[in-house]
């Protein structure tokens, strides 16, 4: 015990600690926030932790997943990307409402589906720089029914933090898929119809979930 306090020992410990910090440094990008890849790694661990925690009720698991998604995704950017040029056809209030409703819609839809993924593991394959500073983090699902499926996360830096702005499953971009659908609805029926559909879907979803 006391020998630990000798100056030599103390210096050795300090050296080890500094060395460990240096090793850890690449994992932590500028400003102390984790890099894109580390963030996805962390998120995967958290999501699987929630999915596999039987001590939480289903409703609790869902709420925890939603709270996590709220931190990790940039739903405002996603809203603008899926609406593309049509964003400007919405009034300021409609834009705000769209962001809220679309976020809720994604939460309902994916929250329900992800419940079935508790058997899978996720392998991080690597990351790739994209134009204008974005980063794509590539992952692969291991095990389960979708063994081998490639899932990529498009990340953008918002302030200090990386945020997910698209999920690309086997080459199918979620943003592109919704953009194509919303363009059809906006072209045929206009903004208020699109908002109406979103509200309708969300209302339908929230009823059984509360019961």
């Amino acid at each position, binding site marked *: 015990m006391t020998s630990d306090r000798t100056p030599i020992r103390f210096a050795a410990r300090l050296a080890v600690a500094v060395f460990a910090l240096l090793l850890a440094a690449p994992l932590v990008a500028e400003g102390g926030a984790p890099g894109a890849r580390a963030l996805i790694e962390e998120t995967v661990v958290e999501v699987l932790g929630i999915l596999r925690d039987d001590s939480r009720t289903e409703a609790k698991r869902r709420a925890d997943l939603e709270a996590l998604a709220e931190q990790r995704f940039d739903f405002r950017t996603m809203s603008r*990307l899926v609406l593309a040029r049509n964003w400007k056809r919405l009034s300021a209030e409609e834009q705000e409402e769209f962001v809220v409703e679309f976020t809720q819609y994604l939460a309902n839809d994916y929250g329900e589906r992800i419940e079935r993924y508790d058997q899978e593991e996720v392998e991080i394959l690597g990351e*790739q720089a994209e*134009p204008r500073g974005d980063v794509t983090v590539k992952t692969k699902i291991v095990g389960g029914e979708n063994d081998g499926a490639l899932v990529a996360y498009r990340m953008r830096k918002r302030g200090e933090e990386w945020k997910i*702005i698209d999920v690309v499953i086997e*080459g199918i971009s979620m*943003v592109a898929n919704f953009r*194509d659908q919303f*363009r*059809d609805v906006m072209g*045929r029926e206009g903004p208020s119809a699109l908002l109406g559909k979103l509200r309708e879907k969300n209302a339908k979803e929230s009823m059984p979930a509360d019961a």
Partner: protein
Amino acid sequence: MRRACAGLALLALVSAVGGGARADEEVALPLVQADVDEREAQDGGGASKDPWEGMNRKIFAFNEGVDRWFLEPVATGWDWAVPEPVQRSIGNFFDNLWLPVRFANDALQLKPRDAYETLWRAVINSTVGIGGLFDPASAWTVVKSDEDFGQTLGAWGVPPGPYLVLPLLGPSSPRDTVGLVVDRAGYVPSYFVPFYVSLSAAGTDIVNERAGALEDIRAEREAAFDFYTAVRSAFIQYRENRVRDRADDPAEDEDEDGLYYYEDEDDF
């Protein structure tokens, strides 16, 4: 092999086999010409790749009807009656029969490594895997080839052409339709077994495959704002990605397409 893809990818493929989806009410509504022009002006994906949309939507609605009233109920019964491991073995069995076609397409795309692995997969699964019922090869070989002749044509530089929905067979393109016909012609068992056996085998394969996607397709239908468009968008992206061999998106495409950028982005 179709099991190796998630969510929408699964949907796109299973639709391609089993044929389609229920039509939303708005499917039949005619498009105003001005909207079509505006849509086409907007970006490269989706609408501009579907000049036959009117006809495609009708066929899609028909396929949806067939699925809703026939295939889905049958597959639901199948899923209830046939245990999961048996379903998996049936899927493996049919996958194994297609391996010669995969091998030929690996070779035609000049991918010796994939061709070699496909050959080994066929040998291992046909022997150790008892005629293809089991898939021990997946534990040993790296590449699970999913090449078809549509992709081979793509690799040779043939463009897919417009989006095309085939009756019963589902989403496709002129290129992939040619691919389907060529792959079918190369499917060895059809030359060795009587016609009615082939037919009932194909039926079993389709029902079994559809049974594996009951929940996925139900979820996609429920979630979609316009199911026709959702499937089209997913299918086109999925096939492009397959032809690229799941490699990375070329960056220049992305800038043209503008998928990830919007005006005032820098105001953030």
